[in-house]
C-alpha cells in the first residue's frame, strides 16, 4: 500500500495547477457566457503536453500515467469544466483507443498528431435514437472492395465542430447486435462527413458538440480499428478509461464549488456571525469535503487499477457514479450556501451547477453505471 504521489505526478500537478489558475480560471466565466470555444487554451494545453498525457513519448505524447492524467483533469476542470472535457475527449476517447487497438501504421498516421496536439479528436458513438443502448444504433458501414461506405447520424459529439480526427463506432452487420459493431478512425474533413449546428446546452458551454452526418462517406478498410465485429469491445474498453477522466472532471467541478462556498461562508455574515459559524452550514460543508475526498479516492483507485494493467470496468463505473453525483450535490449546496448570490452569474457556483449535470449523463448515465456495478455483484 502506498498512497503517495511520485515526483513525476507531483511535478505535473504543480505545473497544471499554475496554468489552470493563471490562464484558465480568469476567462472561464466569459467563455461560458459567450459560448466560445477556447482555441487559445487548447493550443496551450498542446504545448504543455496535456492532450496526450498517457501516450508514450515516441508517439508524440507525454509518456505519463493514468494518475497524472486524473490529477491534470481535476485541476483543469476546477478552473473550467468545458476546457476539461475538451482535454478528456482527446486523451481518453481518442488517443486511448488508438493506443490500444491501433496498428503501427494507424498509430503513426493518426495518434502522433493527436497526442502532440497538432490535431484534435472526437468520439462518435451516440445517435439520435441510441445512447446507452449501443446495439440499437443505425449508422452502417458497408464493405465495398477495399473501402467501407458509411451512412448515418451521430449525436452530441463533443469536439465535433473542431475535430480533425474521429473515432467512429457503427454497425458493420446490423443483424448481429453487439457482435455486428466495428470501430473506425475517420478524417473529419473527408468527403461525405458533414457537421451539424453546434448544440445549445445547459452547461459546459465552451465545449462544443454537434451532430455528425455520414453521407455515403468512403473510408479505406485500413482505417478500421481492430477486427470487424470488435467495435463494441473497443467502445466499452474506451469508456472504461473515459469514465475515469469524467470522474476527475466531476471532482474538479465539485472542488471548485466547495471552495467557493467555503470561502463565501467564511466572509459573509448573517445574524451577527459568519455563515460558517452556523452549524447547519458548517456540517453541510463538512459533508461536501468528505464526499469529495471519497470520490477522489475511488477515482485514484480506478486509475491505479488501470495502471496495474487490471480490468477496471467496475472501478471506473463506481468512481464515475460517485464523483458525478457528488459534483451535483456539492454544486447544489454551494448555491444554497451563497443564497441569492449563488443564483446569479456574478458568482461562479451557478456555472458549476450547470456544468456538473452533464457528468451524470455522458460516457454512461448514472443508471448505466449502477447496472454495471450490480452486474459485478450478482456475478457471484
Amino acid at each position, binding site marked *: *500500500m*502506498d*498512497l*503517495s*504521489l511520485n515526483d513525476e505526478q507531483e511535478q505535473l500537478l504543480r505545473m497544471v495547477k499554475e496554468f489552470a489558475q493563471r490562464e484558465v480560471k480568469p476567462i472561464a466565466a466569459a467563455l461560458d457566457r459567450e459560448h466560445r470555444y477556447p482555441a487559445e487554451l487548447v493550443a496551450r494545453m498542446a504545448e504543455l503536453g496535456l492532450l496526450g498525457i498517457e501516450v508514450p513519448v515516441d508517439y508524440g505524447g507525454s509518456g505519463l500515467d493514468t*494518475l497524472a492524467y486524473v490529477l491534470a483533469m481535476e485541476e483543469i476542470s476546477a478552473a473550467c469544466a468545458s476546457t476539461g472535457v475538451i482535454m478528456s475527449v482527446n486523451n481518453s476517447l481518442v488517443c486511448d483507443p488508438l493506443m490500444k487497438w491501433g496498428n503501427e501504421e494507424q498509430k503513426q498516421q493518426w495518434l502522433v498528431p493527436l497526442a502532440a496536439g497538432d490535431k484534435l479528436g472526437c468520439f462518435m458513438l451516440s445517435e439520435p435514437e441510441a445512447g446507452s443502448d449501443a446495439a440499437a444504433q443505425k449508422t452502417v458501414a458497408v464493405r465495398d472492395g477495399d473501402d467501407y461506405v458509411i451512412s448515418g447520424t451521430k449525436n452530441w459529439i463533443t469536439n465535433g465542430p473542431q475535430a480533425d480526427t474521429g473515432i467512429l463506432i457503427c454497425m458493420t452487420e446490423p443483424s448481429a447486435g453487439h457482435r455486428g459493431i466495428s470501430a473506425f478512425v475517420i478524417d473529419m474533413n473527408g468527403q461525405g462527413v458533414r457537421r451539424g449546428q453546434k448544440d445549445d446546452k445547459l452547461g459546459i458551454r465552451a465545449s462544443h458538440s454537434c451532430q455528425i452526418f455520414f453521407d455515403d462517406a468512403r473510408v479505406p478498410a485500413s482505417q478500421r480499428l481492430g477486427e470487424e465485429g470488435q467495435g463494441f469491445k473497443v467502445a466499452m474498453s474506451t469508456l472504461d478509461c473515459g469514465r475515469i477522466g469524467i470522474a476527475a472532471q466531476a471532482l474538479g467541478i465539485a472542488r471548485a464549488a466547495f*471552495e467557493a462556498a*467555503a*470561502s463565501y461562508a*467564511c466572509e459573509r455574515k448573517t445574524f451577527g456571525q*459568519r455563515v*460558517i459559524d452556523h*452549524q447547519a452550514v*458548517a*456540517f453541510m*460543508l*463538512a*459533508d461536501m*469535503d*468528505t*464526499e469529495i*475526498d*471519497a*470520490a477522489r*479516492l*475511488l477515482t*485514484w*483507485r480506478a*486509475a*491505479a487499477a488501470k*495502471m*496495474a494493467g487490471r480490468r477496471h470496468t467496475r472501478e471506473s463505473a*463506481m468512481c464515475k*457514479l*460517485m464523483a458525478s453525483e457528488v459534483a451535483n450535490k456539492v454544486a447544489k449546496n454551494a448555491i444554497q450556501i451563497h443564497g441569492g448570490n449563488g443564483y446569479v452569474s456574478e458568482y461562479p457556483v451557478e456555472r458549476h451547477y450547470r456544468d456538473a449535470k452533464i457528468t451524470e449523463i455522458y460516457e454512461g448515465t448514472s443508471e448505466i*453505471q*449502477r*447496472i454495471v*456495478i*450490480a452486474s*459485478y*455483484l*450478482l456475478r*457471484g
Partner: protein
Amino acid sequence: MDFDLDEDDQLLRDTVRQLCEQSVRPHAGEWDEARAIPAAVRDELGRMGLWALRQPEDEGGAGLSTVTACALVEELAAADGALAMLIAAHNFAGLAHVAAASASQPALAGELSAMASGQRPCAWALAEGALGSGEGALAITATRQGDAWALDGEARHVLGAAVAGRFVVFARAEDGPTAFLIDADAGGLHVSAPLRTHGARAAGTAHLGLQGVRVPDERRLGAPGRALTDAATIVALRELSWAAVACGLLRGALQQASGYAQQREQFGRPIASFQAIQWKLADMATGLEAAWLLTVQAAWRCDQGRPLGEAAARARTWATGAAVRGCSEALQIHGGYGYTREYPVERALRDARQLEATAGGSATARSVLADAIAERLG
C-alpha cells in the same frame, strides 16, 4: 499509488476470515441475545494477537501497521459488530492511550504486555462531550494523597465495561483533566449491570461508579492537566477504528443482501433481476468502497506519522453513515424476513446505529472537519 494490502497482510486477513467463519459468525446471534461474548472466544482471538494489533512484537503484540489492524477489525465486524467494537475500542483507544503514555512512563510497560492477552480488555471511559465542553463534562474528581490519588464520581456508557479488566478514566484534578489506569477489581469501583442497548449488545456497555478508588501515581497516564489534549489523538484513532467496524458491518450486510436477492423469487423471478433491487445493491457497494478507501487513507496517514484528525473524521462520518443506510437497505431487501432475528441483517443495522450515534456521534467528527475547513479556506 497502490491501494492494496501487502501480500503478507492479505494472508493474515484470510486467516482471520477463516477464524471468523468457524468461531464467530455462527454464534454472533447467540452472543447478541446473551449480551456477552464468551471468555474462550476472547482467548482464542488473543492467541492470534487481536488484542494487541499495533503493539510491537517484542512487547507481546502482533506488530501490525494501522492499515492492517483496520483490515482485521473490518473482517471481524463482517461477522460480528459487537466483537469488532470491543476489539477496536481496546486496541485503538484503551491500549493505544496506555501505550502512548508508556513512552515517558516505563512503569506502564508491564501493564501493556498483560493487556495484550485480551482475557480482560481495557475500556476507555472518556465522557461524551468532554472534548467539546472541556473538563466540566468529567464527572470524576481526583485528589492527590501522597504518592497516590483518590478518585470519586462516575463515568457513563462505557463500551466493554462489563468485561473489562482495566479502565482508562478521566478525572478533574487540581491541575486540570488527568487520566488514570485503574483495575476492574480496585476497591471502591463499581460496574453496573450491562445496559440494555439498541445495538452492540454483546459489547457490554455499562456505567462505572467510583468511591474513593485509590490509584498509585505511577498509573497516572500523561502529565496532570493534559489528559484531554492527549485524548484528542486517541479520539482520532477511535474514529478510525469505528470506520473500520462500519465497513465490515456494511460488507457483511451487502453480501447477505445480494445472496438473498438472488435466491428469493417474486413474480416468477429472482428479486435481484429487478432494477430497483440492483440500484440499492449498487449504491451499497459504491458507498462501501468509498468508506473503505477513506478508512485506508486515514490509517495509512497514521502509519506515515501524518496528522490523522481530518482523515479519521471523514472516514468515520462517511463509513458510519453508509453503514446505517446500507444495512437499512439490506433489511429492506430481505423484506419480512429481514425484520426477524432469524436473519443477521437486523443485528448489523442495530450495530451500525451504535457506531453512528455513540462515542461523540458523527456530529463530533463533522465539527472537527468544519473547524479545519474554516482554518483552510477562511
